[in-house]
């Protein structure tokens, strides 16, 4: 099981802020994503209209999810494939293991899949004597390092070029120790050579799925490297792992979502390889897998339907929310403590592992709203983080001091006269205390707050006082 360290988010975040290598990697990587996305969106005047349509397609599908899943599964079977319905991570791991055993598999190659991380598939296969080989370049180095991805589309977001070189020297011991990596390209070439052997030797290929198409019974993967295609084409057996909310009705629906996905994710107009797989090898085909399996995984998602978190199931895993998040931008992905980082993780992780373990995550937000404004599926992420804070409060999971202060605040907030009096007194006192300072570096009774940030000295009176002045000036 991927160990859940979300309860230690505060400690994780503090460590991340002090990690010079991580800060360097985050600084370099972030700007590139933001700029490329902005340019791709600017090249497509219909982008906003497509977001609305994409949201409606997903809403329609979720409102009829049972029907679309039934039709999807029937069409997979018509094409000679097998669907394995799995309620839990445990069932999904068992289903994959059984397919691998029946195939007599010793090694399996893997395309990038976040659901594979979620069900902790690699550990399970290894424990049962099957070697999983990650073939996405980023996933490959993460596996060499024994780590987990720090980003849902760029797993090695937290690494610098020096890390790649050092890890390749350490792990590829059959190559000359004094070889030189002049360019990033040389690192890529070495991985390509190493992984080529693994692609050819694998007995089973496992990929994820970006979409499932009900109309045709197809699973869709989107990659730039081509590793997913080698993974699913060369071995005798292909397993696609997919969670239930990946289904969309038709190819036309998928086209609309694909127009949003790459632009939001990497800022490309379209990814290099978008591949639709439907069943196994047909009579006369000269290549491709003979067996095609879909492991269809719920793992907590059906419980989100009909709740205030249903809209989260529209997510197409583009990562725009984390790329634009000021919190992710300084902590990186590992601090979030489970599989899904950033704003989408702050909503999804409490749904899947429980708010008792992941309550810090929806609190680790400035509510700046950037995530919602870039989300191609228009998911109201800040609103849902607020829902989690409410649930945490209702279940008495919020720390006692915070509850006490919230109670105090609520008492004043319900009595506007008292509230104005109190804020006027507080602002006055702070101005007096902070004369000539500009900002407080520490404050009595607010040490926890000022430990991580400064408090500006108030200027120009309370909000209500300023508002009243503005109204009079009209």
């Amino acid at each position, binding site marked *: 099981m991927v160990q859940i360290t979300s309860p230690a988010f505060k400690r994780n975040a503090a460590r991340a802020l002090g990690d010079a290598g991580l800060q360097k990697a985050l600084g370099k990587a972030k700007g590139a994503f933001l700029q490329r996305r902005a340019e791709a969106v600017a090249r*497509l*005047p*219909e982008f906003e209209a497509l977001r609305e*349509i994409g949201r409606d397609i997903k809403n329609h599908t979720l409102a*009829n*999810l*049972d*029907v*679309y*899943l*039934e039709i999807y599964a029937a*069409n997979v079977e018509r*094409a*000679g494939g097998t669907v394995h*319905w799995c*309620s839990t991570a445990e069932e999904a791991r068992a289903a994959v293991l059984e397919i691998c055993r029946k195939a007599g598999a010793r090694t399996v190659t893997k395309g990038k899949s976040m659901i594979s991380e979620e069900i902790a598939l690699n550990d399970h296969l290894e424990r049962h004597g099957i070697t999983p080989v990650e073939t996405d*370049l*980023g996933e490959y180095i993460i596996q060499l390092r024994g780590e987990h991805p720090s980003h849902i589309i*760029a797993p*090695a*977001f937290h690494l610098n070029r020096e890390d790649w070189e050092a890890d390749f020297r350490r792990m590829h011991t059959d190559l000359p120790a004094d070889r030189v990596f002049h360019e*990033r390209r040389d690192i*890529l070439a070495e991985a*390509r050579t190493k*992984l080529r052997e693994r*692609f050819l030797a694998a007995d089973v290929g496992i990929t994820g799925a970006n979409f499932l198409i009900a109309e045709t019974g197809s699973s869709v993967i989107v990659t*730039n*490297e*081509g590793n997913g*295609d080698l993974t699913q*084409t060369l071995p005798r057996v292909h397993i696609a792992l997919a969670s239930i909310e990946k289904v969309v*009705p038709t190819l*036309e629906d998928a*086209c*609309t979502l694909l*127009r949003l996905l790459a632009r939001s994710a990497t800022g490309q*107009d*379209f990814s*290099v*390889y*978008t*591949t*639709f797989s439907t*069943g*196994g*090898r*047909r*009579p*006369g*085909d*000269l*290549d*491709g897998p003979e067996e095609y399996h879909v492991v*269809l995984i*719920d793992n907590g998602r*059906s419980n989100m*339907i*009909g*709740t205030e978190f*249903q809209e989260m199931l529209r997510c197409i895993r583009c990562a725009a929310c984390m790329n634009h998040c000021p919190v992710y931008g300084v902590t990186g992905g590992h601090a979030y403590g489970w599989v899904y980082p950033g704003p989408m993780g702050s909503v999804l992780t409490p749904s899947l592992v429980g708010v008792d373990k992941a309550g810090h995550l929806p609190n680790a937000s400035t509510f700046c709203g950037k995530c919602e404004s870039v989300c191609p599926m228009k998911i109201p992420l800040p609103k849902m983080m607020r829902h989690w804070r409410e649930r945490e409060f209702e279940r008495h999971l919020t720390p006692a001091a915070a509850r006490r202060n919230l109670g105090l605040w609520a008492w004043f907030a319900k009595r506007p006269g008292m509230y104005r009096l109190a804020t006027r007194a507080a602002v006055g006192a702070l101005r007096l205390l902070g004369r000539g300072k500009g900002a407080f570096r520490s404050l009595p009774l607010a040490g926890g707050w000022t430990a991580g940030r400064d408090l500006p000295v108030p200027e120009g009176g309370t909000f209500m006082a300023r508002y009243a002045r503005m109204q009079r000036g009209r």
Partner: protein
Amino acid sequence: MSRDAILSAIRRGLRRGPLPADQRAMIEGRLATHPRHLIPARSRLPRAEQVALFIRNVEKEFGTVARVPGAQDVPAAVADYLAAQNLPSRFALAPHPELTGLPWSSRPMLEFEARRAQPSDAVAVQHGFAAIAETGTLMLPSDAARPTTLNILADTGIVVLRASRIVGAYEEAWDLLRAERRDPVTGGFMPRNVMLVTGPSRSADIEQTLELGAHGPRRLHIILLDDDPAVLPAA
């Protein structure tokens, strides 16, 4: 059984039982008619401009295009490209009648076998089913005559494409497949595999900096056969 558990959990969430017949019929109608959504204006162009847009987009994504006037010119275009790139003149060829029937003997130096790709192949020549101008994307459906390994295994991929097969949007390419293909297993149109390919393989996993040639072809070259009088390049 987990199938029933998942479906009933979904229905519980939706606060209903199995969908009533009339609503189910609406869903089936939507699948049967598969309505199109908004298609971006960028590809709504006269034929000649659509082809020009396709070429521009392929080149933007680091692919290359050579236009040839007739089928008899394809072998020379393949030979010239391989020579210019300093590549061996041996390749795996898609066993498609439009390709195997070309006058290859006009270029006796070229050696090829019509088959799927093998790991040792440096060059593969594939048959292009259709292409999409909107993003410079090739549609390559698998078939006995169009093996998938030719798309991904060799270092250099060459695709022979007729200009008359270039459409504006993805939806139009799917409609070609819907109209032209019958699957021997399902009776529908989807083959085992359809790849939409936009440029050569790449990765940005090292410091989010783009490098070409990850696991698929490092080079993607399209030989565009000008078979459509409406789209002949301006003289």
